[in-house]
């Protein structure tokens, strides 16, 4: 096996271990690494005990919200008149995020095993995997893996010979960012347009087809078997306080070596950027979007939250030295989200960055709630004006006030996903907005065309 170039030296990689093997995506490769041993073990355990183990592991949802996985499973009622379902959210589409696509293409069995364990824990017999419609190679590899799993008796009338019936179906999306939101995903799974549902009831009570449902992200599911094969101590040791397990972080933008890295939860952000080769071309860091496009931006400025008590301001750590986990990023006013980190160098235009994101959210709003439909659309228009130099101070003020009326006002968080960046960019980079208004044009150049060139990450077909 070749050395793992996308993890800290000496780190015991688990989630991306097989990505580097030529046929690491096959059943044989997975089984050779103790794959499906966890499922065999779990099928002999009491379902409640399985949930307790997952709770104790401090595993938290890797799709964005960071909700404790065991707690989510525990919300599913024991008795139900309708069938219960396990749904895997493989609709990866948060800008900056590309880890699940590789798990699906290079190690799909780990996710299938996690989903099977979840099914046993909540006593469900049906797994649906909702995969993003645009995925080609990942879809084909997933379909092949599901077929292998049926052939080998993982799925079918008697999962691993236990007598437990377990079926697994793959459902292909058709192009809609909003379907990554779990209730929109359920609507889409049911054959409808992807409009988020009002909560409560939460999916754990009323989810797919009216039945109690657990919806978990691909990486979350891929973590689950590790809790049972490597053990609780190992799993907790790979993470930080209340953030169990190793973590996949996808980094893009202006680093020397973009890629998906496997690191311990809680790795300091500046150390992580150094691991990814540092800022490219010897330039300096302007800002970090830590967890996908919707997460508030971090600036290399002194941060009191990270300082020790009584530490003088001149010695405060920088915001961009924050440990990368759900709790620490929340403490500094941002989010770990889906761990899609985008790094911006000193030649990057903040207004252009935000304008790009606003165009995206305006395009992807499902239109159900007016604060989102109108708010994202008008924010995008104002940002385009500011970026091309025809904006006014009134635009900047309206942008801020519109974001106030978007936060927390809608059925799902798509409006918040734009309002949060708007507020943090305006607060931390007010000077750049002012510079656009004053000069009547964007003061930054067109970006260099610079593909990463690392063929390892190309799908190759």
């Amino acid at each position, binding site marked *: 096996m070749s050395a793992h170039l996308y993890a800290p030296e000496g780190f015991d990689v688990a989630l991306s271990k097989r990505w580097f093997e030529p046929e690491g995506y096959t059943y044989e490769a997975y089984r050779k690494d103790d794959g499906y041993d966890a499922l065999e073990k779990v099928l002999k355990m009491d379902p409640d005990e399985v949930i307790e183990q997952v709770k104790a592991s401090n595993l938290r949802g890797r799709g964005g919200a960071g909700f404790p996985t065991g707690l989510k499973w525990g919300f599913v009622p024991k008795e139900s008149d309708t069938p219960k379902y396990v749904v895997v959210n493989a609709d990866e589409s948060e800008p900056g995020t590309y880890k699940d696509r590789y798990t699906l293409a290079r190690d799909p069995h780990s996710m299938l095993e996690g989903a099977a364990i979840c099914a046993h824990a909540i006593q469900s017999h049906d797994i649906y995997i909702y995969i993003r419609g645009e995925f080609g190679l990942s879809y084909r590899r997933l379909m092949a893996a599901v077929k292998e799993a049926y052939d080998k008796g993982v799925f079918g009338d008697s999962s691993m010979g236990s007598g437990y019936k377990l079926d697994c179906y793959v459902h292909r999306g058709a192009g809609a960012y909003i379907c990554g939101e779990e209730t929109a995903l359920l609507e*889409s799974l049911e054959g409808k347009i992807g409009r988020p549902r009002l909560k409560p009831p939460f999916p754990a009570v009323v989810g797919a087809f009216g039945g109690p449902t657990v919806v978990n992200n691909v990486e979350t599911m891929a973590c689950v078997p590790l809790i049972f094969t490597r053990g609780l101590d190992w799993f907790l040791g790979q993470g930080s306080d209340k953030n169990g397990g190793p973590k996949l972080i996808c980094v893009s*933008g202006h680093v020397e070596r973009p890629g998906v890295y496997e690191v311990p939860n809680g790795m300091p952000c500046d150390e992580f950027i150094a691991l990814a080769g540092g800022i490219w071309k010897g330039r300096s860091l302007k800002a970090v979007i830590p967890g996908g496009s919707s997460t508030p931006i971090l600036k290399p400025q002194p941060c009191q939250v990270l300082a020790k008590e009584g530490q003088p301001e001149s010695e405060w750590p920088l915001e961009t030295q924050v440990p990368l986990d759900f709790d620490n990023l929340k403490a500094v006013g941002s989010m770990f989200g889906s761990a899609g980190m985008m790094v911006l160098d000193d030649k990057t235009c903040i207004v252009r960055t935000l304008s790009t994101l606003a165009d995206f959210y305006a395009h992807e709003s499902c239109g159900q709630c007016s604060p989102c439909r109108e708010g994202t659309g008008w924010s995008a228009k104002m940002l385009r004006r500011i970026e091309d130099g025809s904006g006014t101070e009134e635009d900047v003020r309206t942008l801020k006030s519109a974001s106030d009326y978007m936060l927390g006002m809608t059925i799902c968080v798509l409006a918040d996903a734009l309002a949060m960046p708007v507020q943090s960019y305006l607060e931390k980079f007010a000077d750049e907005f002012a510079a656009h208004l004053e000069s009547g044009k964007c003061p930054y150049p067109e970006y260099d065309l610079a*593909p990463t060139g690392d063929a390892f990450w190309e799908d190759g077909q």
Partner: protein
Amino acid sequence: MARVLSEETLSSIKDATTRYPNNLAAMLPALHAVQSQLGHINADAELDVAEALDVPLTRVREVVTFYTMFYDKPIGKHKVKICRNLACRLRGADRIMAKAKEHLGIDFGETTADGLVTLETDECLASCGTGPMLWYNDTFVENLTEEKLEKFLGELS
């Protein structure tokens, strides 16, 4: 009798319904199957799907118009979508988008006169570490340079 759907498509739709507790849920697989037969989903095909699934026509129509992968009008033989989102832009996707328009002589949302290529932009395709990139008939073309793009477009036939 189906208006435009082939026996093969109808049987694939019937097969899809066995994977869900109700027929409506087979909508997305049904429409994917229709599009792979016809290249797009026209009004007759929508009627066929409504009948095959035994659901109201409006259910079909709203889904066709909601999702970006479904087309209700004929398009080019090849669909080429260039990612316009942030990670790709940070790596110079603007130049790739300009070059694609120049090479094909059309704007985004248009099809070449010979019907060969429909050019579009797309939102983040989860390929941020290998941007700029494009999506083409279910595959990704990554780490794009202007030369690589022109070679790719030139080889489409």
